[in-house]
Every structure is written in structure tokens, then in C-alpha cells.
């Protein structure tokens, strides 16, 4: 267990350092986030639909597609000089490689979300501070789910010719449950409904995370082995 965590940590630290040095995916994700929020803000008609009704959907569309940029890069990094072979040759278990990638992706997506959330509040004038605690919990649970699945799909897409196009095609169908749950919960939180009202969606999100993290760990080896 110690070896697994040590290897996973080494892989995650390496990925974060590489992203910190280049900042290509991070800056792209932030620019994308700001653009999407700005476009939606100016395109909506505030007299037809209120910001609070529209905001949850826009927030999760933004998070989902911004995360996709980071997920694409997860195994794209390993394509350079066939570095993935170096990982596979090492004694690090396949589970450690997967967990390391998930960890790095969580740092990436979490950082994008941490910057996007205040931007979102600014553009849509939605009061996020009163519901910040539950909102962060929803974001964290949904992010774990789609990063877990997205990391697996990224490992499958990386060896295809059009990896950047393949990832959304493979990933989006799997994101329907967590994103739907997250949108529903966010909408109720913004509407000031009690947290108990979202417990069914919360259970769905937690269940999705448990099932898909376990399934992705099990399937990861077969996706990267030749």
C-alpha cells in the first residue's frame, strides 16, 4: 500500500510540475472558462429566464468542458517520447499509475474550478457565499466522479489518431449521471431550498463515485496494456 501511494504521488507530482512549467492546458482552460461565462452572460435575456434558473446549467457546462482540456492532457503528456512505456516498465503498479493521474487531474480541475467559481458569481450575480459549504461538497463529489472516468477514457483515447476528439465522444455519455445530479443540487442550493431536499441526488453522486472509481481501477490495466 505504501509503495502504491508513493508511486502514485510521484506520478501526480511530476504531472503537476510539468503543467506548472508549461501552463498550456491550465491557461487554455481558464480562458475557455472566462469566454463561456462571458458569452452566456451577454447572450441571455434576463427578462425571460432569471440568472438563478440558468446559472446551475451554465456552471456545470463550463466545469465539464474546461475539465476536458485537462483530461486530454493527462495521457497526452505520456505520449511525448513514449514516456508511458517508462511508467509501464517501472515496478509501479497500474493502479498507482491510474491513481497518480487521477490525483494530478483533480489538482488541475480543482484549480480551474476554484478560479471559475468567483468568476461565475461575478458574471451571474448569484449569491454563492451563503451556500458555499454545500456547493463545494457538490463540486468535489461531481469532480471526483468525472475525473475518475475521464482519466480512464483519456488513457483509452491517447493511442487513437484523434485523441482530442475521441475523449468527449467517449466521456460525455458517462458524465450524464454526475452532471445531472450536480445541476439539480446546485439549482436547489441557489434557490435556497434545504439541503435535505437534495439527499437523493447526493446519494446518486456518492454511489456513482464509489462504483466508477472502483470500476476504473479495475479496467485501467486492460486499457493501457498492449
Amino acid at each position, binding site marked *: 500500500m505504501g509503495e502504491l501511494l*508513493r*508511486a502514485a504521488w510521484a506520478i501526480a507530482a511530476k504531472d503537476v510540475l*510539468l503543467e506548472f512549467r508549461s501552463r498550456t492546458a491550465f491557461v487554455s482552460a481558464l480562458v475557455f472558462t472566462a469566454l463561456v461565462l462571458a458569452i452566456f452572460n451577454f447572450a441571455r435575456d434576463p427578462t425571460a429566464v432569471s440568472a438563478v434558473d440558468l446559472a446551475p446549467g451554465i456552471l456545470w457546462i463550463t466545469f465539464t468542458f474546461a475539465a476536458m482540456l485537462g483530461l486530454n492532457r493527462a495521457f497526452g503528456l505520456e505520449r511525448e517520447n513514449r514516456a508511458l*512505456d*517508462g511508467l509501464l516498465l*517501472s515496478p509501479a503498479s497500474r493502479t498507482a499509475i491510474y491513481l497518480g493521474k487521477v490525483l494530478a487531474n483533480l489538482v488541475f480541475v480543482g484549480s480551474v474550478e476554484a478560479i471559475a467559481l468567483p468568476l461565475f458569481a461575478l458574471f451571474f450575480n448569484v449569491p454563492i457565499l451563503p451556500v458555499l459549504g454545500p456547493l463545494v461538497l457538490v463540486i468535489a463529489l461531481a469532480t471526483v466522479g468525472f475525473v475518475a472516468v475521464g482519466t480512464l477514457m483519456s488513457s483509452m483515447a491517447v493511442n487513437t489518431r484523434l485523441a482530442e476528439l475521441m475523449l468527449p465522444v467517449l466521456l460525455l455519455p458517462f458524465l450524464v449521471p454526475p452532471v445531472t445530479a450536480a445541476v439539480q443540487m446546485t439549482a436547489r442550493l441557489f434557490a435556497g431550498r434545504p439541503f435535505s431536499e437534495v439527499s437523493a441526488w447526493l446519494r446518486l453522486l456518492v454511489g456513482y463515485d464509489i462504483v466508477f472509481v472502483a470500476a476504473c481501477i479495475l479496467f485501467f490495466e486492460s486499457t493501457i*496494456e*498492449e
Partner: protein
Amino acid sequence: MPAPLGGARAALAVRGLERSFGHVRALRGIDFALEAGDSLAVFGPNGAGKTTLLRILAGLLRPHKGEVLLDGAPLERTDAAHRRRVGLIAHYSLLYDGLTAAENLAFYARLYGLRDREALVTRALENVGLADRAGDAVGTFSRGMVQRMAIARALLHEPRIVLLDEPFSGLDQRAAATLRDLLMRLRAERRTMVLVTHNIDEGLELATHVAIQVAGRLAEFGPVAGDLAAYRARYAEATASRG
């Protein structure tokens, strides 16, 4: 010509290795065995299946038939202990351009769970003559320097079995001489080596055993016997008759 199999405890043995990619049969029944300290040079033209053989020996590729035995035990591709015993110098460096030379080696040292990493990395860089470039990103290195880094990475964990895929390609004279010295040292340390190349001169200089691989089969396997001219003639004959 059938290839002899060694004893049950050969350091590295392969039996009946077959592998296809779609309709292309890259390996069609490869057998050989090497004792500890043996160095095998595998000669063959492009497309003979040499790299496929090496990737299977490294555990990166699954054979469709046959098996690889390390010290008599079947290679379990998921077994960390096996992977600790093998080092691969491949066509590609397996390094990260965005990390420095020292960071790349430190990362691999961490993955292999090696102790005293700083000293180890410094020594590895000194061995390949790159100690003065430890803090520079690998992406700024020349082809020869990258190849020397790839060698440092592959040997960092002191593998007992070293696999080399065209290690001299793209190297200048100085880098080639450094590599030759390193490989001679590995041979003196009785590491088992498999060197895949189509350069007969370089292969013969380092090998105790020679194989000629053509169209996925070993046309010849055995201890080095004969001079360069004789091997060139046999290689030409094998590639002409089976290519």
C-alpha cells in the same frame, strides 16, 4: 536452424514466441536461452520483428503464443520484482522534455523505490557525462545527449537484464564511445544483454552470442564464431533466402 534452449535456470529464455499485428506475423516461433553474463546481438533487416521481440522481453507487449522465462520463472508482466530486473534502452528516450535531467532521473528513482536518490542521480549523470547539464531541461538536449540520458534512465536501477534497441542510432562518435564503454562495463559485470541492431560491426564487438532474425524467425542463433566478413556473408544469405 533450430535455436538451442539452455538449462531450466537460464537467466533469460524464450520459448515458441509468436506475435501478430492484424494479419502481419511479427514473430513466428522464437526460441533461445542466455546464461547470466551472455550478450546477445540480434541482427535483422527492418521489419524483421526485432523491436517486437525486445518489447515482449521487456514486458511491454503480450506474446500471442510462447513464454519468456527469467531465471526459470515465467515473466509475469504485472510482477514488480521482474520489472526491477529489466532495463530497456528503446528507440524513444521515455523522458519528459519539460523536466531537467536530474528531475527525470529522480522521478524514475522514486518509481523504482531507490534509496539515496540524490547521490544516485548525480552518479548516473556522471556516468554518461552529463553532470554539468543536470539542471537543464531534457527538451534542450541534442539527440546524442538525449540518448545518453535514456541510457542513464535505463541503468539507474542497475537491472540484471539490459535490453537495447538500436542504441547507437543517431549518436556522434563521442556519445557512441561513451555508450560502448558503458556496455563493456555491463558485460564485465556479467549483466545479461540483448542488443537489437542492423549494424553488424557494433553488435559483434559487444556480443557473446549472435542471432539473425528475418521475417519473424531466427535464421541463426549461437555463440559468436567467425569474423565480421563471415557474419556479413551469413546475414546476406539469410536475408536473401527468407526476407
